[in-house]
Structures are given as structure tokens and as C-alpha cells.
């Protein structure tokens, strides 16, 4: 233990499981989140592999009446696994992903604070996530909830499965999200170190701040929606029930009023990570710092006014549809501002293709496709054709996986030396990138074509014409799985055998790199004093 000679750090200051489960240190809580979210990711990933496995072959009954090509026991099993995959990945992986893991560890470090504003609340929000996740897992695996992660009425009211418990579980994980967001807002407002003005904050912090605003303002709507759904199932209050004059489409309005901003809860922190990676690995001051910061706030603001684009075919008025269509295209403006600024940052930069940068470049490529197809789907006539087809599935996977997950991986490789004080194998990291990046495109690009051909989403079988592309897609999912296994091996190997990491292996300029690797319990030996912006590469 080389660092033991220099004294203790946050990892070894206290020992034993109990010291971790009761820790108020934001860095340790981040590690707790890391372990739990990665476990959920593994479960959600296995569900995804099962879904793709089922779709590998077209099911046809042979002469003996047996289904050939069928992997899962039944169509119902497919629906249940689809629900597991969606609910786990959305509520337990991508929403807490970057803010709760990387944000928890690096937000205070990047603004020179000793901790987040409310350390106990921080730990409480981890326990909320764990309680919600445990309840959700228990419900899903014991009663086989089959509504999909959106819980659309009227099916969710009629379904004989334990939707109520599932909804309560989602409510509790929502609570966790609110508490994290609240904590981050106050931390950013109150705990910046001397000289760290708002306009000197790293762009990752700006992204987390914008995300936190959405978390605090949108999640309560999900809370009341889910409570009303639980009431509807328990007492039949009638608000979503047409028999009593209620309106099932109102549920969709309520649900997407949260769940569309939630999409930006997922992607904004990813954009923050990318800003850090691009500037660090281009060795160049970020281009358009202010524009990127404002565009984060802009996306947060617009996110509240676009929910109707999920409902173009749900019977909302044509006028509403047109308004939502235009508002949705507006999201493209701040997003494109970010893209152009990132590209301009790389222009004439001294670019190194270290593994975090590879993930950042992968993000730029995949997110551009995800974003542009998003604009296509905002056009009503196009959406009417593509609605509920694999085109939509491919679109949001390009944004969520190609965007957020690439950023999680890039950010994780970037900050790994700081988090654990060890270096990982660059070769392993690059191999994981190659498999994930290529596998991702092999999996999801054919789905655009399948969607354009009219293959509906959420079905466990299809007509023979769709088989070749589905086979390619399934093979791609195996490549992604191999990529993540390589990443897991690289990380574990780095933890055990990695060389000791220097303070600032990448030559970054933000504050967290001035702390030790890994940081001490109090983050900095002396309170830092900031005199310049975050990316002053000379």
C-alpha cells in the first residue's frame, strides 16, 4: 500500500462493511451507488440479452405443434422480461447513473467543497434507491409485472399483477432522485470554495446543476401520478377510469410530464462528462464555455414543454400536436450548440485517443444519430408512421445507450485513477470500447431499418421478412455483452494489479485533480482558492 505511507485516504480511513453502510462521506456514498447501480445494470443487461435472444429467430409452429425458434417459455414471459429491462434500466440505472455515482464523488471535489450540503440526506437517498429497488425486484420476480415501465392505463389498472407494489417502488426510487437533486442544488449554491464563481464552475457541475433542477421540479409529478395510479387500483377513484368519466389519456399526460424531462435527467449529466473529456483530451480550452452552460439550462427549461410528442397518436388535439412538434424541435437548438462547441474545441487541439476520449468520440457519433432521428420523430407525419415501431426503439437507444452509457463508461475510465488511486489497462479499456461501440451499432442500426419496414415494438414474434436484420441485431447484443465483460475485467484487474495513479494523469485543469489520488477524507489538505476559469490550457 504505497499511499498508506502518505497517510489515509477515503477508501482506507475506516474499515469494515458497517463503516461503508453508515458512511456520510460523499465519495464513499458514490462508491455505494456505483456497486448497486452496476449490479442493476447487470440484471437489466441480462434481461436485454434474453429479449434479443427471443427475437433471434422467427417463431413458427412445426408439424408437431411445437414452436421452433422460441427461446422464452411464453409471450407473457417476454412481456415480463421487457418490463424488467425497461424499469430496471430507466429507474435504477440511467437516472441515478451519472449524478449519483460520478456526481456524488466529483461535484464537491470540482467546486472545492468538503462534502455535499446534506451528507445524511445523501446517504438516505442511497437507502431510498436500495429500498425501492429491492421492492421492485421482489415484485417483478415474484408476481411477474407485465405493464412495461410506462404503466399505461387502462391496462395497468386491469392487470392482475402487483402493479401497485411496483408503482410504490418507483415512487421510492423517485424520492431518492429528488433528494439527490435537492442536495446538489444547495451544494452548488452554498458550498463553492473561495474564488469559485458560478461562471468558473466546470461544465460537468453546470450539467449536474441543470439536471438537479429537473429532478426537483419534475419528479413530484411522477410521485402524484404513481400515487393516483395506486389509488385507482386500490379504491377505483375514477380519475383515469372512463366508466366514471375519467380519462386514461390524462395518465399519459401526467406520466410524460415527468418522464420526458426525465430523459434529460439521463442525458444532461452525460453531456457534462463529455465536455470534461473533450477539453482534457484535446488539451485545449473549451470552446464556448458560457454557451454550453446556458444550453444545459436551456435544455432543462424546454424539457418541461415537450411531453406531448409521446402522444401524437393518443388522441390529443391536432393543434396541441403541432405546438408540441415545434417545441420538440426547439430542443435541437441547445443540443446542437453543445455539439458544435465540442467539435470546435477539438479543432486544432492536441488530441490524444486515450480510452475516455474514444468513448467521448463514440458519444458524438452515436448521439448525433440519436438526436437527428429525434428531430425526425418530432415531425408529426413521420411519427405517425414510426410510432410504436423499432425506429423509436433504435432512436432512444442511440440517445440513452449511445449517449448516456458511453458517457458513463468514458467518465468512469477518466476518473477511475482519482476514485481508486490505481491505473487500469489502457489496452483492456480500448478493447471494451471497440466491442461496445461496434456492437452497439450492429445491434441498433438494423432496428432503424426494421422500424421503417414497420416492425412493431414490444412483440415477441414477427413475420419472416424481419428475420435477417433481427439476427444481425441479436449478434450485436452479444458483442455489447462481451465489451462490458472486458470492461468489468479491466476495472477489477486495475483495482487489484493497477499501477499507482499520479495526482493528475491526464493533465486536466479542474480542481478534483489537485486532490490526492484517491482523495483524503476531507478532499483537500487546504481549502482551495480559485483564480481562473476551469479549462485554462496554455
Amino acid at each position: 500500500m504505497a499511499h498508506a505511507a502518505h497517510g489515509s485516504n477515503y477508501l482506507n480511513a475506516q474499515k469494515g462493511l458497517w463503516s461503508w453502510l453508515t458512511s456520510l462521506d460523499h465519495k464513499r456514498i458514490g462508491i455505494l451507488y456505483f456497486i448497486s447501480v452496476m449490479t442493476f445494470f447487470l440484471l437489466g443487461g441480462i434481461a436485454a440479452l434474453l429479449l434479443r435472444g427471443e427475437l433471434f429467430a422467427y417463431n413458427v409452429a412445426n408439424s408437431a405443434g411445437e414452436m421452433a425458434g422460441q427461446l422464452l417459455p411464453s409471450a407473457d414471459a417476454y412481456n415480463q422480461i421487457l418490463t424488467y429491462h425497461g424499469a430496471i434500466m430507466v429507474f435504477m440505472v440511467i437516472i441515478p447513473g451519472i449524478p449519483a455515482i460520478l456526481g456524488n464523488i466529483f461535484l464537491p471535489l470540482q467546486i472545492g467543497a468538503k462534502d455535499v450540503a446534506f451528507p445524511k440526506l445523501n446517504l438516505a437517498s442511497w437507502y431510498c434507491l436500495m429500498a425501492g429497488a429491492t421492492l421492485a425486484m421482489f415484485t417483478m420476480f415474484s408476481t411477474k409485472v407485465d405493464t412495461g415501465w410506462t404503466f399505461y392505463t387502462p391496462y395497468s389498472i386491469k392487470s392482475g399483477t402487483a402493479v401497485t407494489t411496483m408503482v410504490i417502488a418507483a415512487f421510492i426510487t423517485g424520492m431518492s432522485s429528488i433528494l439527490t437533486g435537492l442536495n446538489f442544488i444547495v451544494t452548488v449554491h452554498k458550498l463553492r470554495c473561495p474564488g469559485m464563481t458560478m461562471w468558473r464552475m466546470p461544465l460537468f457541475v453546470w450539467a449536474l446543476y441543470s439536471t438537479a433542477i429537473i429532478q426537483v421540479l419534475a419528479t413530484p409529478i411522477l410521485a402524484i401520478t404513481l400515487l393516483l395510479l395506486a389509488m385507482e387500483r386500490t379504491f377505483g377513484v375514477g380519475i383515469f377510469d372512463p366508466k366514471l368519466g375519467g380519462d386514461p389519456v390524462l395518465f399519459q399526460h401526467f406520466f410524460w410530464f415527468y418522464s420526458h424531462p426525465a430523459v434529460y435527467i439521463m442525458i444532461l449529466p452525460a453531456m457534462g462528462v463529455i465536455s470534461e473529456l473533450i477539453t482534457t483530451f484535446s488539451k485545449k480550452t473549451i470552446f464556448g464555455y458560457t454557451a454550453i452552460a446556458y444550453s444545459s439550462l436551456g435544455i432543462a427549461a424546454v424539457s418541461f414543454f415537450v411531453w406531448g410528442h409521446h402522444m401524437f397518436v393518443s388522441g390529443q388535439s391536432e393543434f396541441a400536436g403541432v405546438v408540441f412538434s415545434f417545441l420538440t424541435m426547439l430542443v435541437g437548438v441547445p443540443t446542437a450548440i453543445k455539439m458544435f462547441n465540442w467539435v470546435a474545441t477539438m479543432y486544432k487541439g492536441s488530441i490524444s485517443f486515450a480510452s475516455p476520449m474514444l468513448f467521448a468520440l463514440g458519444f458524438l457519433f452515436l448521439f448525433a444519430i440519436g438526436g437527428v432521428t429525434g428531430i425526425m420523430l418530432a415531425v408529426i407525419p413521420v411519427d405517425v408512421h414510426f410510432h410504436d415501431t423499432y425506429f423509436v426503439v433504435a432512436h432512444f437507444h442511440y440517445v440513452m445507450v449511445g449517449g448516456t452509457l458511453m458517457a458513463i463508461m468514458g467518465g468512469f475510465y477518466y476518473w477511475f485513477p482519482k476514485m481508486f488511486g490505481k491505473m487500469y489497462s489502457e489496452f483492456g479499456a480500448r478493447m471494451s470500447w471497440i466491442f461496445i461501440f461496434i456492437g452497439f451499432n450492429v445491434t441498433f442500426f438494423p432496428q432503424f431499418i426494421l422500424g421503417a419496414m414497420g416492425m412493431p415494438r414490444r412483440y415477441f414474434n414477427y413475420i419472416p421478412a424481419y428475420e435477417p436484420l433481427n439476427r444481425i441485431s441479436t449478434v450485436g447484443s452479444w458483442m455489447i455483452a462481451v465489451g462490458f465483460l472486458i470492461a468489468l475485467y479491466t476495472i477489477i484487474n486495475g483495482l487489484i494489479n493497477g499501477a499507482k495513479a499520479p495526482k493528475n494523469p491526464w493533465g486536466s485543469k479542474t480542481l478534483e485533480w489537485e486532490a490526492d489520488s484517491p482523495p483524503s477524507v476531507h478532499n483537500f489538505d487546504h481549502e482551495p482558492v480559485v483564480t481562473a476559469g476551469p479549462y485554462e490550457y496554455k
Partner: protein
Amino acid sequence: MINGVPVQEHYRDASHQFASAKEGIWLFMATEILMFGGLFVGYLIFHMKYPQMFAEGAQFLDWRLGFVNTLVLIFSSLTMALGIYFCQINQPKKAVWALAITILCGAVFMVIKYFEYTHKFHMGIYPGRMLDLEMLNQHLSSIGKPAIASTNLGMYFGFYFCMSGLHGIHVILGMLMISWCLYRCMRGDFNPNYYTAVEGVGIFWHIIDLVWIFLFPLLYLVG
């Protein structure tokens, strides 16, 4: 500890910590208001669609009981504010009394609510689908009033029970938190430099009162 104030090490001083805590409370209050906001939006939509149903349903609520409850809660807001004030001027004994009266007011509110709810259950009024129109009409004919033909009266009571129920849960939570403040106040935790918990719970209590001030006309006086 700085001047008898437990200041956590990541804050500069007591006032820094106090301002941060207060901002956290206000943000949490924003989430509370937005959560009730979902119910208010639902109410608004269906009130526009079925104004008659809301007028019909409101007849079954006793506005006098609602009015008494409104007064009780407004008075409790005053005593809550006094509780904070007495902590600020270092008179913990008076603060204990003020907080105790606030809890008592919450209890009075809940007892009145209990009688309102059970009275409705006796008439067959339950939320939504569970509303027993036959039982309700029997009750109406026994007191010489015309029968109700409406089929979606249940939805009004869906709103009534959801809105007042969620509010009632918050009143109970508020009472528990005020009790915790009361206990800490008796233990002598608070002084003019440190009364964050009372202030925070106070803000919560006022917001809950404010929600009721909107619920009272919307549920009892509508129509």
C-alpha cells in the same frame, strides 16, 4: 460546536449552515407544492368537464366543519410562528407551549376530519367505483331529499378523498415532526443561534396550511 451551535465541518459557520438548510427546506417545499399541483390540475380539468358533478358532490360536505378546520389550521400557523420566535429570543419554555398548542391544533383538525370521513362512510360515500349510490339514496330519502341519479359522483369523491387524504397524511407527518422539535426544545437544544429544526418544520407546517386554504374552497364551497 461554534458558540453552542453544532456546525458540520463542511460549513464555514452557523449562519452558512442555517442558510443552506433553509434553502434545502424550500426546495423540498417546491416538490410538495408540485406534488399537490398534480391533483389541482386533475381537479381543474374535470371541473371544467363536469361542473355539475362537483356542485352535486360538494353538497355532501359540511362547509361549517371545513371552516372550523381552516380556522384551527390558521391559528396553528400562528402558534408555530410563535414557537420559532420564542426560540429566537431564547425563551424555550414558551416555545414548548407554542409547539404543544400547534400539535393540539393538528390533532383537532384530524379528529374533525375523522368524523367527516366516518359520516360519509355511513352514508355509503366512498371514493370512485366504491361509492354506494343505493345506500346513499336510501339515506337521502330517509331525510326527505331527492335521490341522486348521477353516475360519476364517485369521481368527485375520488378527488375529495385523494386530496384531503394526502393533505391529512402531511398533517400527521407535520405533527410528528413538531413533536420531535418539542422534545428537542425541552431537552434545551435550541437557542437564538441555533433553531434550524424548528424553522424548517415551521416552513413545512405553513405550506401544509396553505394547501388546505386552497383545498377548503375547492372542495367545500364549489358549486
